[in-house]
C-alpha cells in the first residue's frame, strides 16, 4: 500500500476523492493528502500484480479480482474435496455422514464444515459474506438456543473514520475501557482491554516511560493527567503489510479490521504495530451468556476463538450504523470525538482545523487516524 508520494507528516485524508485534479477536499492546503495520487496507485498496484506471480500473487485491487477469485474457489473446492475424502477414509467425519444423527447435529456439522473451509472475508462477494454471517448466526442458535444479529455491512461511500482525543478533558475514569469491553465481547478471564489509559505526571510532558497504564486508585489523581491509546487505524498500517495471509486489512472507510476466521495466529502483526494496538486470544475467550452483546458485526464484536488476533475496530457494528463507538458514548467528560473525516461539517473536522493536533510516533510514517489535542 505504499504510495509513492507519501508525506510522512501530512494528514493523509481525502483518500476517496473522485476528481483527479490536484485540488482536493481534505481541507489541507499542503497538498499532501494523497488524494491526487490515487489513480497512480491503482495502476502501480495492477502492474505489480501482473508482474509478480500470477499464480500466487494476491489481488489487492478489487477490480480484477473476480477472475482470480473464481480460480481460487475452484482450487479451494478441490482441496476441500480432497481433505474430505481423506477424512472420510479415516472415519473422522462420522457425525456429518452419520444416518443416526439428528437433523440438528447434521446441520451443525454441515455448518462447521463450511466454516472451516470458507475463504477470506476480504475477498468474498456480498452473497458469500451474507452466507457466512447466516451460518454463524444459525450455528449460535443451534448451540445456545439464543438469537444474535450479525451484520456484514460494507464500508459506505465517502466515509473515512477518524478520532480525536482531548488530553485536557480526560480524567482517567476508565468508563471508556469498561464500555469497550462490554460492547465488544472481550474475554473476561484475561481481562483483555483494547484501550489503555496512561496516567502521567504533570510537568514531565508526555513521558510514557514513567506513565502508569494499570492504575487502581481514585481518579483524577492530584498532579497527574491522562492519555488514552488504542488501535489508531493507521492509514498506512504496518500490521496489514506483514500479515502472511491477509487476515487483516484496511477497509475503504479507513477501519483496520481482522477476519478472525482467517487469522492463523502468527502474531507478526502484533510485533509490527508500533502502538500496542493489537490483542491476542491466548486462551479461549469467555463471556458470560448474559453479558454477551448480541448486536454484532462480522468484522467487529462477534465471538472470537482461541489463537486469533483481535483489536479495536472503532466499533464497526456501531460506526457503520451511524452511531458513535462505545468509548465515545461512555466518556463522561467528552474527551473523545469521532466522526467522518470527509464530511466538512463534522466535529472531528472542526477539531482538526481549529485545534493544535498531533499524533504519536509520526516519524514512523504510519499515518494514524487518531489525533490528540488540548483545549
Amino acid at each position, binding site marked *: 500500500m505504499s504510495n509513492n508520494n507519501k508525506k510522512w507528516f501530512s494528514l493523509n485524508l481525502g483518500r476517496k476523492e473522485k476528481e483527479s485534479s490536484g485540488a482536493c477536499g481534505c481541507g489541507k492546503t499542503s497538498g499532501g493528502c494523497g488524494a491526487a495520487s490515487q489513480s497512480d496507485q491503482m495502476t502501480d498496484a495492477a502492474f505489480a500484480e501482473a508482474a509478480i506471480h500470477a499464480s500466487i500473487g494476491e489481488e489487492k485491487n478489487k477490480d480484477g479480482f473476480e477472475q482470480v477469485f473464481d480460480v481460487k474457489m475452484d482450487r479451494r473446492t478441490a482441496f476441500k474435496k480432497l481433505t474430505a475424502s481423506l477424512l472420510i477414509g479415516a472415519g473422522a467425519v462420522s457425525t456429518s455422514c452419520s444416518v443416526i444423527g439428528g437433523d440438528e447435529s447434521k446441520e451443525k456439522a454441515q455448518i462447521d464444515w463450511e466454516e472451516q473451509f470458507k475463504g477470506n472475508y476480504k475477498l468474498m462477494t456480498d452473497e458469500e459474506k451474507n452466507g457466512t454471517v447466516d451460518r454463524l448466526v444459525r450455528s449460535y442458535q443451534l448451540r445456545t438456543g439464543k438469537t444474535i444479529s450479525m451484520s456484514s455491512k460494507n464500508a459506505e461511500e465517502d466515509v473515512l473514520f477518524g478520532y480525536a482525543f482531548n488530553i485536557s478533558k480526560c480524567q482517567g475514569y476508565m468508563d471508556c475501557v469498561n464500555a469497550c469491553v462490554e460492547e465488544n465481547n472481550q474475554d473476561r478471564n484475561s481481562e483483555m482491554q483494547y484501550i489503555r489509559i496512561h496516567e502521567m505526571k504533570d510537568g514531565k510532558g508526555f513521558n510514557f516511560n514513567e506513565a502508569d497504564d494499570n492504575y487502581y486508585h481514585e481518579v483524577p489523581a492530584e498532579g497527574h493527567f491522562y492519555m488514552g491509546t488504542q488501535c489508531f487505524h493507521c492509514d498506512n498500517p504496518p500490521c496489514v503489510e506483514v500479515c502472511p495471509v491477509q487476515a487483516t486489512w484496511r477497509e475503504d472507510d479507513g477501519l483496520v479490521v481482522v477476519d478472525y476466521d482467517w487469522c492463523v495466529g502468527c502474531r507478526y502483526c502484533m510485533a509490527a504495530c508500533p502502538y500496542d494496538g493489537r490483542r*491476542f486470544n491466548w486462551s479461549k475467550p469467555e463471556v458470560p451468556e448474559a453479558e454477551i452483546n448480541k448486536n454484532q458485526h462480522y468484522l467487529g464484536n462477534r465471538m472470537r476463538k482461541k489463537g486469533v488476533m483481535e483489536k479495536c475496530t472503532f466499533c464497526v457494528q456501531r460506526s457503520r450504523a451511524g452511531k458513535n463507538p462505545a468509548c465515545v458514548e461512555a466518556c463522561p467528560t467528552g474527551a473523545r470525538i469521532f466522526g467522518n473525516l470527509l464530511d466538512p461539517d463534522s466535529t472531528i473536522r472542526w477539531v482538526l482545523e481549529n485545534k493544535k493536533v498531533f499524533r504519536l510516533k509520526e516519524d514512523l510514517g504510519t499515518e494514524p487516524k487518531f489525533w490528540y489535542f488540548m483545549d
Partner: protein
Amino acid sequence: MRRLRVFRSLVKDSLDTITHGSKKYHLWMAFLTFGMLTGMYCYSIQLEHGLSVTGMTDRVSWGLYISNFTFLVGVAAAAVMLVMPTYVLKDIDFKQAVLIGEGLAVSALIMCLAFVIADMGGPSVLWHMIPGIGVFNFPNSMLTWDVLVLNGYLFLNITIPFYILFRHYQGKEAKSKVYIPGAILSVFWAVGIHLVTAFLYQGLQARPFWNNALLGPRFLASAFAAGPALIILVLAIIRSFTEFKIQDKTIKKIAMVVTVAAQINLIMLISELFKEFYAPTHHSESAYYLFFGLDGKDALLPWIWTAIPLNVLATVLLTFHKLRNNFKVLFFCCFILFVAIWIEKGFGLIVPGFIPGPYGKIAEYTPTGIEIGVTLGIWALGAFIFTILAKTAIGIELGELKYKKNKEN
C-alpha cells in the same frame, strides 16, 4: 522401473541400518524418542488450552519458539559453508563433511518449521498459507518470503545429497554436471534464507531494537560461526563412534571458517554496542534492558552475561593457531561458541525486541515448563532425524549399503 526398484531397496536397506546398531545407539534413539513423546504431550496441552500455557503475553508476544526458529535458520544456512568448497572448488577434503552438513541442514529446517507451527495460534487453519488454496500475501509480507525460501532450501538440501547417495548406492559416481548447478544455487539460497529471516525482524519500524541495518549481516556472521561449530562437534562424535574416516585436515579447515566468522561477528557486536551505549537514545532502551536491566527488571542479565564472555573467550582462543589446532581446545571452543550464539541470537535477540513495549512498559518474559518441553521435543525430533540421515549416508559412503542387482527376488 529400475530406478523405482533401486529406491525400494534403498529404503529397505536404510531401514535395516537404522534399526540395527550398538547398545549406545539404541539408548540414544530411545532417549530421543522419549524426548519427542514428552514434547508431543506438552504440545497437546498447548493445543487444548491455547498459547496461554506458554510464558508469552500481549506484551512479549514471541518467545522461546521464535528464538529457536531464528537460531536454527542460521544452523541450516551454515551447511553451505561446506557445500561450496566441496562441490564447486573441488576441495576433496570437505567431501565427507558435506553430506553430514546437508543432513544437519535438513534436520535444522524441519525443526524450524516445527517451531513455527508450534508458535501458531491456529495450526488447524494453516492451509490458509498455502499458495493457491489460501491467500498468500506475497510479496508484501516477509513471512511469506520466509516460507518460500525455507521450503525451497529444504528441497535443495534433500535432493542434492539424495542424488549423490543414490548414485553411490548403486556403485556409480555422481555426475558433477547434475549436482553442481544445484550446489551453486544452494549457496546463494543459504544466504537468502538467513537474510530473509533477518528482514522479518529488521523490517519492523515498531521495534527499534531490530530495525537496524546490521541485523542481516550479523545474522549471517553468527550463523557461519555457530553452524560449522556444530558440524565440527558432530563430526567429532561420528569420528569416534563409527568407521567413517574424517581427516584432521577437514576439521581444521572448518575450524578456520568458524574462526573467521566468529571474528567478524565480534566486530559487529562491538559496533552495535558502541552505537547503543556511546550516545544512547530512546531507542537504546532495549539494549539497556538486555545488558543492564531496566527498573530492576533484569531477567535476561544472566543469559547475556554468560553469552558475551563465552563468545569472546571462544573467539580469542580460536584466533591462535596453536590453540585451534589442538582438538581438545577446538571442541571446547566450538561448544561454548554454539551456546553463546544460541543465547545471543535466540533469547538475546527476540525478547528484548518487545521490552520495553511500544509505550515503555517493561513486562518480562519467562518460558513455562510446557514451552520448554515442546522446545526440547522439537530438538529431539531434529536429532532423531539427523541420526537417521547420517547413519544411512555413512552406511552408503562406507559401502556397507549397496544395491545388489538380484537381491530383490
